[in-house]
């Protein structure tokens, strides 16, 4: 394979910065697109870009975004020599047998790593970025996913030269004069397949068994102080090397020999294929999805209607109470998780929000009224677009957050930034299947895990997996998919190209699958607003003919029901919703007329004749006589009794007096209204009314509820028995003379002691001052010290505010902390950098 021969290139880069400098704009653009954190803020030059690309946080982010094979490649590079050649890497990835799939896939994986600036250098000098190497290389604290241990050189670092010589001799090598060449010879033996095979051929069977157990990792084993002969044999020849008392390790070279060169037990060069669990006719898929899309609209409208006259209260911590969610789920005839999804969907689409009143409740937004006026397909596209982009995940509702608080619908803590990306990816995978094919959920999850191995099953809660499952079920609820397969309108919504139609195009063999993986994932994760608008419009065009036309008629029946054999026009549905109770929903709606429902319509301002006209206009069959009768019968009695509120009344046997009062302008403030010839109702309270009437020159008497005249007398108002308040003095009680005298004496004695002149003391030493440097300088000095391994002198303020000086040898600087060997305390400690007031290099004579 002719890989990037170095001949016609400028001299090999010596650093990542140089390597970046050698890249063209397209390639750098690729880097910045895949690692957007590198340009926030925009770096001043490529050196700074390279530095930033090497920071731990950024490298971790980049690694988490690698697919499994690229990650495996990076892991292999981390256990290879630094720099490594392409062939060395290929050996680690493909093994001695040179797995053809790996051979084919490796260049792409390496390109990915190069593009991401995780690897630099030509094929003859491949270098993994140092931070990545530190993260991925095997170390006792974090074992490598490769299951490999340290190299012979690393493992023998602390070993006595005598012991090394013994091993070399036992392994059948000539003894050498120094440890370095001995170790090199030993490594040479272990990496030489034939000589190594010969060595192992002489091994006792049970010793080989021990190796067998350790070969795929973890490479560490426990030994007793007096090891068994089978271990002894291995230890003698350096096939196991001690790392700590009682612990031995299988050196990397030995493991690789036993693994036939493979760094990974199962290299996964090919992404798992998303399998179709079933294939339906595309028409069936589209119509099912359209049916579900319509149900989704109906459900959201129903939810909003349920909340129309004031939704549930907002919890103090935000969100919907469990009881309200339960009530909503009953109202929507759905399970609670599904109800939570609808509520969150309406929220994400901006159709509901908290009203922000003092007594906070959820309510429909003005947006909702606009939304309702849209044609059905557009209403759907609004919901679906909002869903695609939402980071809020309804699936979490009912779970608990890190602080063990219940996550409530519409409440805080539901945002998961990965949700839109996973959603797009899942639908993208569906879009990659032939039309009408419903995927096997397991294979979708496996594929997602392959694409983001570090983001998947490692985490205990497997958020991505759950997000993917939610995405699948929510897509079905929303009608983006039908019977599990992506519908035509769903595909359009994603802006995805038409499906690979014929089975001929579908990947059939391992080789064929490669292009699928390395083709840029279709569709791109996010569409721009303009692109999304185009995609939505296309989806609307496809969906519109599939949705049932709103009907303008119902069927009225003698059992006092009306059946709408399909969705109704909005004004008709609204009116019927008032005039009758909904009895059953679905494709059709069954309404039942009851005296109560007819009364409701009359209360809403309709007259009986309006109702008759309405029913006649919209019924395809004659209005049944009992229904017409019911309306008239209810209307006959409607409003016969009138109820109002008054706070007082005026009664007088002489209607002329009442007429006089009514005519008097001064009575206007009392809010009087004549109910009957001898009765006036007043809005003013009885006391105000009495006063007002008296002011007008009348002599009214108050009346009790029973109609007796109340005798007015000042009613003395009394509390229940109460004790008088205890006095609260302003300060302590006035001291008596004895106390005062004693206090004075004490004060004078103290005063004397402090004012007595004394001899001058010694001056403070200048060396006690804390070093002071700026934070940038502090960081730079620390980092330099890490590299040089030198000790520095720092000023440090601890959590209590106590300042101190310490001499430390920094080991690591990361995440705002410096880990260092503290000479002052004689142990390894970690200091937050912001507490370090300054740093100074030690004077040569110090230390």
């Amino acid at each position, binding site marked *: 394979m002719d890989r990037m021969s170095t001949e016609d290139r400028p001299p090999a880069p010596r650093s990542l910065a140089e390597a970046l400098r050698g890249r063209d704009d397209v390639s750098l653009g690729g880097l910045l697109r895949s690692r957007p954190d590198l340009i926030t803020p925009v770096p001043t030059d490529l050196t700074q870009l390279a530095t930033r690309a090497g920071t731990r946080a950024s490298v971790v982010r980049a690694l988490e975004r690698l697919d499994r094979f690229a990650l495996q490649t990076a892991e292999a590079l981390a256990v290879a020599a630094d720099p490594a050649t392409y062939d060395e890497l290929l050996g680690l990835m493909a093994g001695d047998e040179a797995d053809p799939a790996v051979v084919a896939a490796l260049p792409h994986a390496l390109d990915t790593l190069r593009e991401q600036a995780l690897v630099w250098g030509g094929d003859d000098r491949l270098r993994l970025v140092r931070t990545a190497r530190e993260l991925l290389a095997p170390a006792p604290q974090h074992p490598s996913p490769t299951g490999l241990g340290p190299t012979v050189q690393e493992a023998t670092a602390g070993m006595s030269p005598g012991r090394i010589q013994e091993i070399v001799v036992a392994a059948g090598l000539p003894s050498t004069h120094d440890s370095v060449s001995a170790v090199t010879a030993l490594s040479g033996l272990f990496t030489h397949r034939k000589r190594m095979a010969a060595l192992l051929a002489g091994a006792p069977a049970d010793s080989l068994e021990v190796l067998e157990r350790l070969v795929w990792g973890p490479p560490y084993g426990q030994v007793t102080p007096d090891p068994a002969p089978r271990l002894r044999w291995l230890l003698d020849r350096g096939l196991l090397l001690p790392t700590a008392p009682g612990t031995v390790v299988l050196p990397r070279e030995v493991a690789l020999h036993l693994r036939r060169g493979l760094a990974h037990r199962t290299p996964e060069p090919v992404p798992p294929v998303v399998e179709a669990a079933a294939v339906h006719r595309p028409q069936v898929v589209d119509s099912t999805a359209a049916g*579900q899309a319509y149900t989704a609209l109906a459900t959201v409208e129903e939810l909003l209607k349920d909340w129309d006259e004031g939704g549930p209260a907002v919890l103090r911590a935000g969100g919907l109470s469990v009881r309200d969610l339960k009530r909503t789920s009953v109202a929507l005839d759905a399970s609670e998780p599904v109800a939570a999804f609808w509520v969150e969907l309406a929220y994400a689409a901006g159709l509901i929000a908290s009203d922000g009143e003092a007594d906070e409740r959820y309510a429909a937004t003005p947006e909702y009224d606009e939304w309702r006026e849209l044609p059905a397909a557009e209403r759907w596209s609004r919901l679906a677009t909002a869903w695609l982009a939402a980071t809020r995940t309804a699936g979490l509702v009912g779970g608990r957050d890190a602080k063990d608080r219940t996550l409530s619908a519409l409440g805080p803590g539901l945002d998961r930034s990965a949700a839109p990306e996973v959603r797009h990816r899942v639908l993208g995978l569906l879009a990659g299947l032939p039309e009408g094919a419903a995927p096997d959920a397991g294979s979708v999850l496996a594929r997602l895990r392959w694409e983001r191995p570090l983001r998947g099953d490692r985490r205990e809660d497997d958020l991505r997996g759950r997000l993917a499952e939610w995405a699948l079920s929510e897509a079905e609820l929303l009608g983006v998919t039908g019977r599990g397969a992506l519908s035509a309108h769903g595909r359009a919504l994603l802006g995805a190209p038409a499906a690979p139609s014929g089975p001929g195009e579908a990947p059939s063999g391992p080789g064929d699958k490669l292009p699928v993986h390395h083709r840029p994932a279709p569709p791109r994760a996010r569409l721009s607003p303009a692109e999304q608008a185009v995609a939505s419009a296309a989806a609307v065009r496809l969906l519109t003919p599939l949705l049932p036309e709103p009907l303008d008629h119902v069927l009225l029946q*003698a*059992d*006092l029901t009306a059946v709408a054999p399909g969705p109704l026009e909005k004004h008709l549905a609204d009116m019927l919703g008032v005039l009758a109770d909904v009895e059953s929903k679905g494709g059709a709606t069954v309404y039942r007329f009851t005296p109560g429902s007819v009364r409701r319509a009359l209360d809403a301002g309709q007259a009986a004749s309006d109702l008759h006209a309405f029913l006649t206009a919209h019924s395809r069959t004659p209005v*049944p006589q009992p229904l017409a*009768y019911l309306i008239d*019968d209810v209307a006959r009695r409607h409003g016969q009794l009138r109820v109002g509120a008054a706070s007082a009344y005026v009664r007088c046997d002489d209607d002329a007096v009442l007429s006089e009062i009514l005519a008097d302008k001064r009575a206007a403030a009392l809010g009087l209204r004549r109910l009957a010839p001898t009765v006036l109702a007043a809005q003013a309270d009885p006391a105000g009314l009495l006063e007002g009437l008296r002011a007008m020159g009348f002599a009214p008497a108050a009346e009790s509820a029973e109609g007796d005249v109340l005798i007015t007398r000042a009613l003395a108002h009394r509390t229940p028995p109460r004790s008088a308040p205890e006095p609260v003095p302003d300060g302590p009680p006035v001291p008596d003379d004895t106390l005062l005298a004693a206090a004075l004496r004490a004060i004078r004695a103290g005063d004397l002691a402090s004012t007595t002149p004394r001899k001058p003391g010694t001056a403070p030493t200048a060396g006690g001052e804390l070093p002071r440097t700026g934070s940038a300088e502090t960081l730079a000095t620390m980092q330099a010290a890490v590299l040089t391994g030198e000790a520095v002198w720092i000023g440090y303020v601890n959590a209590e505010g106590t300042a101190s000086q310490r001499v430390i040898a920094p080991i690591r600087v990361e995440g705002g902390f410096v880990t260092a060997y503290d000479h002052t305390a004689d142990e390894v400690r970690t200091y937050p950098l912001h507490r370090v007031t300054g740093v100074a290099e030690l004077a040569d004579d110090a230390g």
Partner: protein
Amino acid sequence: MNGPLIVQSDKTLLLEVDHEQADDCRRAIAPFAELERAPEHIHTYRVTPLGLWNARAAGHDAEQVVDALVQFSRYPVPHALLVDIAETMDRYGRLTLSKHPAHGLVLTTTDRPVLEEVLRSKRIAPLVGTRIDPDTVAVHPSERGQIKQTLLKLGWPAEDLAGYVDGEAHAIELAEDGWALRPYQKQAVENFWHGGSGVVVLPCGAGKTLVGAGAMAQAKSTTLILVTNTVSARQWKHELVRRTSLTEDEIGEYSGTRKEIRPVTIATYQVLTTKRKGVYPHLELFDSRDWGLIVYDEVHLLPAPVFKFTADLQARRRLGLTATLVREDGRESDVFSLIGPKRFDAPWKEIEAQGYIAPADCVEVRVSLTDAERLAYATAETEEKYRFCATTDTKRKVTEAIVRRFAGQQILVIGQYIDQLDELGEHLGAPVIKGETSNAQREKLFDAFREGEISVLVVSKVANFSIDLPEATVAIQVSGTFGSRQEEAQRLGRVLRPKSDGHQAHFYSVVARDTIDQDFAAHRQRFLAEQGYAYRIVDADELLAES
């Protein structure tokens, strides 16, 4: 996509009856969906697990059911619903009760985890014996009914293939002289016999008694017939004597008044469920003979204790007869597990077309109380209220007007309160039959009515229950609620037969406006409308003005 069927989210199916495919659709969904309401335009069917299992028992599979829904549905059927249907149907038949030559009654499974699941249930544990092999467990023979009931509650209905005892043989033949079983009746008998035990669903007036007689002629063994009341018992006896080789002496009546046990015994639910000192003294009836067949009339009214007895009778053939599987107490599942699955269901329309049942013209006349009556009604004690409004004076005037309008036709006036009836009889110049009227007198009046010598008859509720109440073309109900709604409709069907000359039958109920009388009427009308009876409401004033 323009089918006659609409699938609702609550698993009801709406069938547009005027649609051209409506008939095909009805035939396709009838095996698994129960007709719930049949008003004029849209019929409502309901899909229940029991309905689906009934379909399974009748040999239909999930694919047929799903096909029927998908084929006729106007809108896409929710996938979840189809999956649910398939899963539900799949549950039937995983467990089978059968006879093992060595171990007696055994429960076997085709799906081991299901058996493991049910055996782990606390309610199943006491009913089963030893585990014979991984797929088979012995069942105590006495628990055959109990285990079926419990398994159904657990959602794993068992198919009962354990067979039946023959019972004491007794020659019974159908006496088909000048008449024959109608084709659907024959089919019903055949399906029942083939299935072993089960329920035959036929609309009122479609000749359920004859299906019973047919089954008895098939079984040719002693038979116990359980009916709702004495009237019904007499009617059964009358029919059996007429239609079969059985004579009066071979048929016994076991009721409150008579306690005869004969080769064919007809017992009322009431006597069976009479409890004295905490025991059911008439329970021994079940063991008094080696019955070969037990017939349950009006299964939807079967009282709860009878289920308990029935659980012990699983080795005998059981035939349930009913017009509807819907029970007001919701114990449909017990009917399914203890009597058996639905074996036959006749399409209402077909039988109606044969002229045996015909919807009557139902009219509700609303009368207003006078002011004095309204005051009396408002201040009456709760238990007296109905009487006050039901016997208002205006009703008499309305009744007279209706009688005048249908002068010359046979008219029955039905009421609950004797005072009211006496008064009506006096004003109409018609004889009154009430509880105290002697049998001979009753017989005489009925005959005269049949012969047309008298055209108006006033009957009380008590007389109304009498078996030989003659048919009429007009019935006027002035008071009375007459038990459950179904009972009402059945009575209606029995009294109101279309005349041979094609005269439509009329049913008037006179109801006092704005009272509980009207509330009762509303319930009744809903039921009537749901059964397909058209009805109208008219004001008394209008009616009086017309005449």
